[in-house]
């Protein structure tokens, strides 16, 4: 909800009672102008102290923590937030596009886990700790992960255990081990368990010899056994036992953090060949036609000043890369995990990369979910793109996902943006392959109906024939 002054509390920030994040609307359509955070007295005091620590300054220099300043207290937005009862306000650098752990490839989740552990280790070395291990505290700016939740930093009290250990295992370690050791697609599971996969549930996946893989016994099965015993002992009318635990030395906490760093670094996956992961080599275009298609896309993207681009069904990101030089940010989306993993791995070392790769099935995009459906925002509700690339995608939308053409165009229209859309005709060999062995032959999928639907929802600005008439590329603009 936005109040009249244009300030809206962000849905995902209410769980920590010590602070709340507010977005201040920008004059520019679609953009978040400013991100402000209201803090209570204790969090404000911690924030002042934290900014004076050497580790925090170093992490800021390394661009691993969101850049944060204290705004002028006379600022109208700051005054509004203070009226809500907060003791102080800080202003954060704006993350161009919010993404969630259930949209990150294995490599992205692994890097986010290592960033969390790096920050925690640095903090512990200077007498600080992180009070939670939520993966939502990490965002990606392009391929660079960044920690965004300053109130998570609290002074470490002598004897205090790593309070975020269980959450770290549930949210980072367990899904990574499920993918690396068992080959399980962890993303749909993480989408359901937004607070992480509980040890008792996770233990059900590790059967047979997988129980003896590095870290499974210690960080999944042992916690599951302890939790199972607690559940069995304290259910019904039994009294709950207070568990404060024995004081833990600095070496115990730091040793545990370092051992988990080694464990996470040891987790690797093999990138199997899939339909899309080798698309650069296996697409059905010859070089000349492929260059014409690239030129068409480049022309459409460069027609908008610094656009926010979505490349939906991006494969390994050929056209995301072409757009990136003109764009402020490219969100590269594909349902094929390995294609996205390849895209991420090939750009993760580029500090200025403005491509954010995300794994998502377009027929089932990330929904609004969590408390009251406002805690996590639906993929298409976060920020509208300026231009969408949907290249050689529409036949999959119609024939693989059974989504009628008019419904696809309606969704695109709701985004209020330009679209570059490649139509793949029925006689293209890829459509022929798709229709082989299908009883439904999708008679409505033809050029005539495509043009009718396109014109009903958009104006056709430009089009070009490709692959000897088997395909056609369109630049559509809002009607």
């Amino acid at each position, binding site marked *: 909800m936005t109040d009249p002054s244009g300030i809206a509390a962000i849905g995902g920030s209410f769980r920590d009672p010590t602070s709340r994040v507010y977005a201040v609307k920008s004059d520019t359509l679609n953009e978040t102008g400013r991100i402000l955070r209201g803090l209570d007295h204790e969090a404000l005091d911690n924030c002042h102290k934290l900014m004076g620590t050497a580790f925090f300054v170093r992490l800021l220099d390394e661009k691993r923590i969101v850049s944060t300043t204290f705004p002028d207290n006379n600022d109208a937005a700051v005054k509004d937030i203070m009226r809500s009862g907060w003791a102080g306000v800080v202003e954060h650098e704006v993350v161009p596009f919010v993404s969630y752990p259930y949209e990150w490839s294995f490599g992205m989740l692994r890097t986010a886990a290592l960033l969390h552990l790096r920050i925690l280790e640095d903090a512990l070395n200077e007498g600080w700790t992180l009070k939670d291990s939520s993966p939502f505290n990490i965002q990606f700016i392009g391929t660079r992960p960044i920690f965004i939740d300053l109130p998570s930093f609290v002074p470490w009290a002598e004897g205090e255990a*790593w309070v975020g*250990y269980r959450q770290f295992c549930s949210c980072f370690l367990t899904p990574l081990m499920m993918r690396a050791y068992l080959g399980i697609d962890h993303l749909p599971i993480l989408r359901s368990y937004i607070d992480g996969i509980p040890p008792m549930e996770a233990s059900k996946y590790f059967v047979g010899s997988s*129980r003896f893989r590095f870290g499974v016994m210690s960080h999944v099965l042992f916690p599951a*056994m302890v939790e199972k*015993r607690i559940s069995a002992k304290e259910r019904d009318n039994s009294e709950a036992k207070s*568990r404060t*635990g024995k004081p833990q030395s600095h*070496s115990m906490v730091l040793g545990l953090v370092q051992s988990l760093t080694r464990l996470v670094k040891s987790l690797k996956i093999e990138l199997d060949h899939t339909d899309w992961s080798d698309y650069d080599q296996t697409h059905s275009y010859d070089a000349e036609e492929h260059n014409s298609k690239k030129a068409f896309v480049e022309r459409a993207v460069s027609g908008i000043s610094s656009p926010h681009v979505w490349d939906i069904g991006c494969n390994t990101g050929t056209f995301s890369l072409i757009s990136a030089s003109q764009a402020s940010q490219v969100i590269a989306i594909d349902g094929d995990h390995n294609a996205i993993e390849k895209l991420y791995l090939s750009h993760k070392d580029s500090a200025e990369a403005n491509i954010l790769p995300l794994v998502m099935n377009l027929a089932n995009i990330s929904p609004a979910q969590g408390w009251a459906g406002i805690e996590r925002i639906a993929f298409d509700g976060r920020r509208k793109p300026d231009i969408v690339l949907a290249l050689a995608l529409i036949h999959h939308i119609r024939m693989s996902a059974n989504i009628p053409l008019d419904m696809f165009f309606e969704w695109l229209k709701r985004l209020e943006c330009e679209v570059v859309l490649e139509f793949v005709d029925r006689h293209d060999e890829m459509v022929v392959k798709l229709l082989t062995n299908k009883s439904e032959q999708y008679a409505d999928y033809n050029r005539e109906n495509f043009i009718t639907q396109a014109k009903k929802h958009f104006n056709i600005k430009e089009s070009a024939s490709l692959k000897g008439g088997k395909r056609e590329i369109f630049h559509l603009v809002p009607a």
Partner: protein
Amino acid sequence: MYKNFGTMIKRCVLYTFICMLFLSTSAHAYVDPGSGSVIVTTVLGFIAAVGYTFRKFFYNIRAKLSGKKKPKENRSLDD
């Protein structure tokens, strides 16, 4: 093949015992099974501290013997 039937039975019993140890049930509403993480971090933290202390000791000894300075901290998020 197992040398004798007795060995096979012993292995079956051992495997069944391990499996039973880790069988889990669902959580109950008033119980916070997550509170058990203080037990888990105490046990794992103790083991990790032994390793941490040993590694620190080992690196110091190695540095003294080889005369080399401690290597610069690897700040990378990769291997």
